[in-house]
């Protein structure tokens, strides 16, 4: 009997914990569908949204889809190993490793040739993309990090990528 109760308790808590792995936010506030966001507007309001999305498997998965659809992979590599553009899975962050920094870079682009995506993505899509970019270097919580890829396997999944402390040093 005691084992039974313990087992029930364990499976319940496991169930409760697993619920938090993924939540789909279909009804966000009006700012989530905003196009043409300036990075300044975004950085004033978005920290909480970015943190919420960075912990969520659904958001990371949607971000992965966008990473391919918006041609991020064409420059940054399919697994974020880089190419014409810098890698996203290593510890070097030229424009900052914070969620807000990544959001700003996606919205505004960079002086070295990355185009601005502010007029191509809604803010919610940017949050999803930031969540995925952050996961590439192994910084997503283990419950939410992608464990496998539906596509050709070109890298160890983010769940098995050892996170390194970010550095802004350029070689």
């Amino acid at each position: 009997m005691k084992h039974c109760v313990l087992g029930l308790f364990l499976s319940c808590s496991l169930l409760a914990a697993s619920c938090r792995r993924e939540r789909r936010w279909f009804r966000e506030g009006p700012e989530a569908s905003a196009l043409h966001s300036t990075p300044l507007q975004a950085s004033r309001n978005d920290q909480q949204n970015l943190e919420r999305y960075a912990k969520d498997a659904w958001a990371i998965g949607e971000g992965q889809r966008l990473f391919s659809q918006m041609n991020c992979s064409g420059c940054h590599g399919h697994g974020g190993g880089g190419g014409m553009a810098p890698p996203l899975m290593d510890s070097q962050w030229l424009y900052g490793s914070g969620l807000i920094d990544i959001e700003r870079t996606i919205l505004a682009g960079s002086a070295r040739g990355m185009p601005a995506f502010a007029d191509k993505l809604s803010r919610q899509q940017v949050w999803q993309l930031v969540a995925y970019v952050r996961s590439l270097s192994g910084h997503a919580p283990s419950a939410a990090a992608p464990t496998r890829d539906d596509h050709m396997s070109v890298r160890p999944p983010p769940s098995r990528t050892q996170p390194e402390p970010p550095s802004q040093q350029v070689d």
Partner: protein
Amino acid sequence: MDEEGLESNYVAGTPYVGAAVRYRPGPGGHLGVLTAWDPARARARWTIEERFPVWSGTLATASGLVFYGTMDGWFKAIDANDGTLLWKFKTDSGVISQPITYRGPDGKQYVAVLDGVGGWAGTPLVANLDTRDQSGANGFAYAMAELKNATKKGGAVYVFGLP
């Protein structure tokens, strides 16, 4: 080569690739071959296998020499008739340029080549890519991961006087 077609969109300022790609060495494990074609007989006269892609141009002289450079930093002179290696010189960085020959102000013949590895296949080394992603550099990260152990970044002009 491994390839998977993927959905792609036209986004101004971004490359329109639509595929995940991973290049692999061919049979024999080498990535490059220098081939001398015999156009009259429509077949290869001789071939030289190279570990990395032969990204340099070739220079053929009237006296029967062929010069070319390799990405791991060897500048070579070959006998045009049979493909025998006559001479090689280790350059500081890999060679992807076009060797030239010219007559100097002193009337002597010189051969010049620029080193400095790069190009698409050189990206994993030059841009310090993370080769854990084998599709990086649009597919060259896997095949060229060892380039960083074979040569280094650089850029210099080498001029050789002929004896």
